[in-house]
């Protein structure tokens, strides 16, 4: 019991605390990426807390954050497209975060979720944990992509007199469109 809470405290300190600094300083790009990382770290902390306090119902917090956190990042990606596009990844922290985010999610989430699954034992609770993990990884991959895709194809002005034909998803080259729909 103690170990889970210690792990949560550690993750809060090394995973979450730096994102506060990241979100409060530097260019907008870095801030949004820090927010993205913070939802990941916060969600994992909540999962660890649920196990540490031996309260399975606390897992719902992580569940909600796993779906709403990426939605928040997508809000920024959508509405701050100008700000995200105007500074082409000059900030080293933002660039490093943008590169490290997906591997980080792919490594850290199993690192936390799998021990929790072992501790929970087989059953629906375990499947729920795995579902949260899958939502978290998928959401983070997509939101990271959205941030970098914005950067790549944010504001290429189209030809004039373009009639809005929005039939079907527009295909434009963002490079390497690996389908990363979560879940």
């Amino acid at each position, binding site marked *: *019991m*103690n170990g889970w*809470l*210690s792990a*949560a*405290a550690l993750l*809060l*300190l090394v995973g*979450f*605390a730096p*994102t*506060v600094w990241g*979100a*409060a300083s530097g260019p*907008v790009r870095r*801030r*949004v990426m*820090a*927010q993205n990382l*913070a*939802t990941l770290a*916060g969600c994992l*902390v*909540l999962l660890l*807390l649920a196990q*540490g*306090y031996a*309260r399975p*119902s*606390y897992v*719902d*917090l992580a569940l*909600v*954050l796993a779906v*709403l*956190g990426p*939605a*928040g990042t997508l*809000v*920024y990606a959508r*509405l*701050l497209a100008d*700000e995200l596009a105007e500074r082409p990844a000059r900030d080293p922290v933002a660039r490093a975060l943008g590169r490290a985010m997906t591997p980080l999610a792919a490594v850290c989430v199993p690192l936390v979720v799998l021990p929790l699954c072992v501790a929970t034992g087989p059953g629906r609770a375990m499947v729920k944990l795995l579902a949260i993990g899958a939502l978290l990884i998928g959401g983070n991959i997509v939101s990271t992509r959205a941030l970098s895709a914005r950067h790549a194809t944010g504001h290429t*002005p189209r030809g*004039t*007199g373009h009639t809005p034909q929005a039939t079907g998803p527009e295909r434009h080259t963002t490079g390497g469109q690996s389908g990363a729909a979560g879940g």
Partner: protein
Amino acid sequence: MRPVADVLIVLALALVAASSTAAVLARDPVRQSTVLALLGLSLALLFAVLQAPDVALSQLAVGSALTPLMLLLSVRKVRRKGKEGGSHRNAGNRTGSTDQEGRR
């Protein structure tokens, strides 16, 4: 368990203090919005370690997507308004205008 739980509370409290101070110090609403997202998250964590999951859930639900959305929409409207007003004062000919039938 007790000392670790206390450490968690202190840590979460410190994070809330730090992020709320940063939110107050940020003057630009756009930059403030990301700090606010972090503040919401820290508050949710604080409520969670204080064993108030209902409040934490409210904070998560409102703070993670809804608040940034409303804030940024307001910023967009205000900026647009300012831009329109500005362009109006400058007799309306914006340089980057790419209208298809060239205005004036």
